[in-house]
């Protein structure tokens, strides 16, 4: 891969992480739905991955978009919002609580050790959640955003040494945090979601992150 190709891949990864971040962190909006459906984004995913979860996820998302081409986007948004709230927001029992600590602590609570470790990881790169201590730092969407920020830093790195450090940090963050709960979290979404959209998103996240981690590990060896 030449340096131009490498830099394009970096940009693509940053875009995908940003997409995952906003998809999980924010409630769906009708303008976002309109864009995604009209521009057929899921049929033209910028990475052609040979990961089965990613392929299945994109298939679900594309078929969701196709089925809803003529649906009223306000109504569609309401349906997605019900699903999003039932999974991640409430009120009441969350079907897929979107925080690492809930999956990785024995008591299944927010603000456990994983939250503090994620907080420390962010801080190491000069970042802090603006809702610190009001909402947990280890929301899946925030972890995706943090990855996007690491990639952005890598793109701006001045020398090889910094670049390699940032690759190592991405590997470490995926390994020590994201991948530790990704499967259980994605499974909870797939089992409980009432829409193809969030099922597809969960599978895409699972597939992409698994691929990305392997990709990073290989590039580290090189």
């Amino acid at each position, binding site marked *: *891969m030449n340096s131009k*190709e490498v830099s*394009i*891949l970096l940009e*693509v990864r940053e*875009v995908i992480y*940003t997409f995952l*971040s*906003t998809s999980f962190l*924010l*409630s769906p909006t009708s303008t*976002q739905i309109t*864009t*995604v459906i009209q*521009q057929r*984004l899921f049929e*033209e*995913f*910028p*990475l*052609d991955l040979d990961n089965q979860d990613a392929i299945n996820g994109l298939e679900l998302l594309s078929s969701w978009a196709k089925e809803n081409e003529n649906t009223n986007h306000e109504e569609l948004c309401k349906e997605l919002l*019900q699903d999003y*709230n039932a999974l991640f*927001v*409430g*009120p*009441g*029992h969350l079907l897929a*609580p979107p925080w690492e600590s*809930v999956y990785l602590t024995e*008591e*299944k*609570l*927010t*603000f*456990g050790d994983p939250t*503090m*470790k994620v907080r*420390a990881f*962010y*801080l*190491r*790169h*000069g*970042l*802090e*959640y603006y809702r*610190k*201590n*009001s*909402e947990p730092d280890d*929301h899946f*969407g*925030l972890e995706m*955003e943090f990855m996007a*920020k690491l990639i952005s830093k890598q793109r701006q790195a001045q020398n090889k040494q910094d670049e390699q450090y940032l690759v190592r940090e991405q590997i470490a963050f995926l390994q020590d945090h994201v991948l530790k709960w990704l499967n259980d979290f994605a499974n909870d979404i797939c089992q409980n979601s009432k829409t193809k959209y969030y099922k597809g998103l969960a599978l895409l996240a699972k597939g992409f992150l698994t*691929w990305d981690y392997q*990709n990073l590990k*290989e*590039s580290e060896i090189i």
Partner: protein
Amino acid sequence: MGNVTEAKKGATVSRRSFLKWSAALAGSAALVGCMPVSSGGSAEPAVAQAGERHLNAEILPTICWHNCGGRCQIKGQVKDGVLLSITTDNEGPDTPDNLQARACLKGRAQRQRLYHPDRLKYPVKRVGERGEGKWERISWEEALDTTASELKRIIDQYGNESVHYIYASGVGGAFNQSYMGGPTGRLLNCLGGYLSFYGNYSQANYMYAIPYMFGSPYGGSSPTTFPDAKLIVMFGDNPACTRVGGLNSTYYLKLAKQNGVKIIVIDPRFSDTASTFADQWIPIRPTTDSALVAALAYIMLTEGLHDQAFLDKYCVGFDDAHLPEGVPAGNSYKSYVMGDSDGQPKTPEWASSITGIPVDTIKQLAREIAGVKPVFFIQGRGMQRHANGEFQALSVPILAFMTGNVGILGSNPGLYEGFTPVRMGSYPAGANPVEAKISFFMFTDAIEKGGNHTKESSGLQGADRLPHGIKFIWNYGGNALVNQHSDTGRTTALLKDTSKCEFILGIDNFMTPSMEYSDIILPDITQFEQEDIVTRALGQGLALYGRKLVEPMYECKGVYEICLELAKRLGVQDKFDEGKTQEQYLREAVAVAQEAQPDFPSFEEFREKGIYKTKPSKIVAYEAFIKDPIANPLPTPSGKIEIFSKTLYDMNRPDEIPAVPKYIEVKEGPRSPLREKYPLQCIGHHSKRRVHSTFDNLPWMEEAEPQRLWMNPQDAAARGIKDGDLVKVYNDRGTVKVKVKITPRLIPGVCSLPQGAWYTPDANGVDIRGCINTLTTWEPTKLAWGNPQHTNLVQVEKA
């Protein structure tokens, strides 16, 4: 794909797609949460490594304030704005003069409430049918605007009597208070008042009935005097489960035990208190305690063991010679016991057939009670939570009168424990201009009957009739709207009808079964996200200061802020808002404490240490009255103990409301014809894993004591049921599916479904969590308009 570049093994990048995606996401990329910190990125904070987790953590005192009857200190280990763990009062030594206010399993699990992923986080409004479970997240502005306009509309249209601030006991601070008063009370008072209530789910029948005998519901001996007794006789009462914390009566039971005091527990269930402390457990069928008391009286009378001089001097109506003027002979308690009035002497044989207690045990118990002094008679709250609860409660003191066990150290006339509270100020709620009060238990009646909820039909006080019933419910920190009230099926059906009660506001930390029936839910902060004070006394007085441990989470707000915002919208800010901060109110509360208790510390010191205790004192019930009944008469019509109440007699409903504490057969009792269909009596004991319904959703608590129906091996064998089986418990009111615990700790013919589990109906309306109130009735008790929630007949079969 268009412009394809080989990237890595297993992936290709599409440049065209990528550009499209970049453009599509350009707007949202800015909407993200990780902000650069001003201090730069070099800081390497102490990450929670093994052994270092608590390094440099601050330890702050706070409180466990739920309604178990005790209160305990909690100490939070806080670091970087996060509560790491919880400990409790460890200031020693833990001696009879200085009990540690140690928290129980629930208090120590409080971190699981604070950091539970299911906490209510944002205001929501109902978007489907009421109770359907469809919600939409809304802004605080919208939530407050809607609540204010609905409150105003309903007051204008139906009047202040139609606004009910419903019974709730989830929050109990000097500042935040969900049980009447508090900022809610003040706001509603500023608006012209609200419909309040009398009585409560814990002890309604006792509190209503006991004054007919003593003139007051209070005044028992303190548990500090347990060790001074020779014998303690407990009718029910299970402090080892209901008030588990360190500074409670269980400690004094232990001291009594160490002193060699004999302890007898009369209870259908071999409770933790019975199994830990009792020398003898006498199992009894629910609702039959007054039959046992009558038979004990019979033995004492026939064997001449009773203290006639005491009865003559201090009591009205024990025998016909001491009835009030104008009451014909044959109406005294003695004539009831001897069968003069009804032809049935209350022999041990008679009582045995009702109570299930062997004849010899009854005889032996009577002789034992009469043969030793002092005896501490005490009753728990469970035995009065029955359809005949008033007379269950009134019967126990008879034993103390017949044996002269009143007014002497080590005695107690069958009353709840006495105490000297710590005086403390509280947030000024002001006076409620609305005089009408419903029974706490009759709110469903007041919704259902609308304008036909009256004094006669429904026990309304302070007015003859409610003009429109209840149209607005303010439910703050409470689960009595659905879960803790009787007959959840009937209650939820009523609440679904939005033409009856038109608006329900819910404020809580969790989506309880009651919150499900709100129109708007506002997320409340816990005690750990604010400052407050609680007091409590059982033997030793206690005041606790709760420091704020962490910032309010998500978008949660406290009730004061909610009320202030509503006051602004409703044009009463000038009346509501005194321009004081929460701290100023707490300082004023402490000033009251300092004036009443000269050794009370400064506000700063109290806030720092978080705890103040009085020296334990020994209270002997009715000591002054016994010493000199002329100088210190009781506040009864006669000034004496009224075993016979002329007031009750004049109600002229002798079968339902007897003038002396007779045994009243209930519709769903041990000898009811309904037993052919529903052969088991079903009670709902308090489990130590919950405070009412609080803590039901915590994993540790489910691990400590999973929700199970208790059942005797004989009843289980007859039904082919094995331990751990899923069973169906049902009657005409509802069906519960729950796993069974088979144990000889409960007598045959009785089962128990521990109260407080969260009502969870499936698609067929079958409760799959095990909420006792799926099976209970709305029908109130006859005198007190109280709750009969342990009086249920059911059938149980394998599910």
